[in-house]
């Protein structure tokens, strides 16, 4: 649709504030970070151009490579384990079983608690000497499995990751909201045809939310996975031996060292990984969006 000249002025008037804010608070900082990533700068002296030195140092640093791997695992687990779990919960609770409001609140509750508080709680659970988990193992005769969960190379990262997977409330409510927009006539027709609840979920609910809330949640969760900082910082500070480090934590440590060039270079890598993730997720979900939207629209029209 081609805009009339008279329509352009109000359009720009409405868009300008948002564009200016976007430019000042996003585009310019990103450009700044990219520029600094090619500099050696301690935050005090004049930055000196060092070409690709910061990036070469990053890729030689085992801690950074570990951080990238951890972030990729985190993003994949978030997108493809945490969100599907949230989806299952959303589908079940959308059928409004007895006590569904209570469970909706319970699952969502961790979202209103600070991540720092949750990490502190889990640190107490994982403690080697007085931790709840080891006490539990001892009490059921599995004391030989007790260990320093956050201080053992093989268990530290899974321990940091695993408790967080089950905090599905945020994505669950997004998908529940979407599921409520699906026309009941689909389910009524399916019931008449003898479809079970499981079949209705597989053949009606999931296809209809796939390109909308499911895509949104997978994208959000993956991006959150890439941005992980507070719980790793609180639980392990990246240890032991950097085995739980993430890119943002690595960046933070470089900032502590006043090594702004390498901190910015790691931020640039994070941006690139983020873009790659978003593009891949969109590609995976591409092609079925229009189909699902059309189906939903048809359902509403029929209803």
């Amino acid at each position, binding site marked *: 649709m081609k805009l009339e000249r008279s329509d352009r002025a109000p359009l720009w008037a409405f868009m300008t504030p948002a564009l200016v804010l976007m430019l000042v608070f996003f585009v310019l900082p990103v450009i700044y970070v990219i520029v600094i990533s090619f500099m050696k700068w*301690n935050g005090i002296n004049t930055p000196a151009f060092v070409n690709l030195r910061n990036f070469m140092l990053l890729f030689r*640093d085992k801690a950074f490579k570990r951080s990238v791997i951890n972030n990729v695992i985190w993003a994949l687990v978030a997108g493809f384990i945490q969100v599907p779990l949230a989806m299952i919960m959303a589908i079940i609770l959308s059928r409004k079983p007895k006590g569904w409001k209570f469970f909706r609140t319970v699952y969502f509750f961790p979202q209103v608690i600070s991540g720092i508080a949750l990490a502190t709680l889990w640190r107490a659970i994982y403690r080697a000497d007085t931790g709840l988990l080891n006490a539990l193992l001892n009490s059921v005769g599995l004391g030989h499995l007790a260990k320093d969960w*956050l201080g053992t190379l093989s268990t530290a990262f899974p321990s940091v990751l695993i408790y967080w997977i089950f905090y599905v409330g945020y994505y669950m409510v997004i998908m529940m909201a979407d599921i409520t927009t699906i026309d009941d006539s689909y389910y009524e027709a399916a019931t008449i045809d003898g479809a079970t609840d499981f079949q209705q979920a597989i053949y009606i609910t999931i296809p209809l939310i796939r390109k909308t809330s499911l895509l949104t949640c997978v994208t959000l969760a993956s991006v959150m996975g890439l941005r992980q900082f507070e719980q790793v910082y609180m639980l392990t500070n990246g240890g032991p031996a950097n085995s739980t480090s993430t890119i943002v934590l690595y960046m933070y440590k470089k900032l502590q060292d006043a090594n702004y060039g390498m901190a910015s270079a790691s931020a640039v890598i994070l941006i690139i990984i983020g873009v790659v993730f978003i593009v891949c997720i969109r590609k995976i979900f591409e092609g079925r969006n229009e189909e699902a939207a059309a189906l939903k629209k048809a359902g509403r029209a029929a209803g």
Partner: protein
Amino acid sequence: MKKLLSLSLVLIMIIALAVPAYAANDEIIINFPSVWVGTDSKAPYMEQLIEAFNAENAGSIKVVVEEQTDYQAARDKLRTTITTGETPDLCIMDTTYDIKGYSEAGKFMDLTPYLDEGWGDDFAEGAFDAWSVDGKVYALPFESAIFTPIYNTKIFAEIGWDHFPATYDEFFQFCEDAKAKGINAVGQMAGENAWTSMLWYSLIVEAIGGKDVYANGLEDPAFVQAADVLKAMYDYTFDGAISAGAGDVNGHWLARDTAIYLNGPWWVANLYKEDNAVDGVLLADDCEVALNPVYEGGKGEGGLVTTVQAFLAAAKQDDPAKEEAVVKFIKYITDPQHVSELALSSGAMFFVKYDPSPETNLISQKLTEVANNADFSILHVNGAFPTAVSTEFPAAVSALVLGEVDAQGFVDQLQLAIDMAA
């Protein structure tokens, strides 16, 4: 009616703008982000001191304390504010800050002229030597610290020992005996900033390498040897030391299940706290100050590990009146009488020369004796190397203890951190 309302609003706005401006002209505000608050041992006396200063200077100078209860968060914030040109009027810093860089960049006030007026005589001989930039003092070494083991004599007696090990060979014999009794010989931590392990490493490095150990960076073989000794100590600490933080080390020590404790003198006040007493017996009553054991074949006998625990630095001021006010406040804090009181209440040690109070507790007196009798001193590892070493230390020590790297690999990891920051 509308006109009257508009007029009233305009008047209120003018008054609201004028009043603070008038107040600002009248009273100088000194912004002071302080970590000596909350549970810090210096907090109670510092609070009194600042209240007294504000009362004495009511209407002309007011010190506003910005409470920083998390040491690491305080460091992050202060670094950011200094870097962005918003240096607070008065800052507390430790050796992890790039004091030389900030001074050269003109971030701090030059205190030399004031010190030359006689104020400098209040400080220990040579206190400024290592920290001045082009002969000028921008950061005032204020709180000092020595690091020497403190041990629980009651636990030692349970293990069957009546003295502290004099050599590291004897030390490990003691550790074995403690282990046989199910007691933790030492507290170690590789979590958070690995503070306790960094201190032990510093003591071992000093014992092996002696006073010139830092002369060639990390090249001295003492660093590799010391790494092996530190690793061995992890066999005699509590479960979960790899992921432990300062709270865990302190908790075990206070629970009387660790025989030897290592921290700065500011921690002494906790030994005398009723809260930490068991059956009415203060922990201090069961404690003795020890010397760093001698390493056979090492060069460190008679040496001591120290640091500047806190520098005081002030932002460069354009307003001479404000500069005078800030200096007046720093002089007030560093007044020998006030420092004596501060030392008494906290147990901390200072670069300011003062007459110790006769009420000074026994442990603090013994620490002072250790400091006075030392033949030489070296900084702890965090203080001797760039900040990158203190950032990397927890990862390196956990890698060492878990067998990811050997002692040489541990030192290489620290060196790589220095190289990347260089």
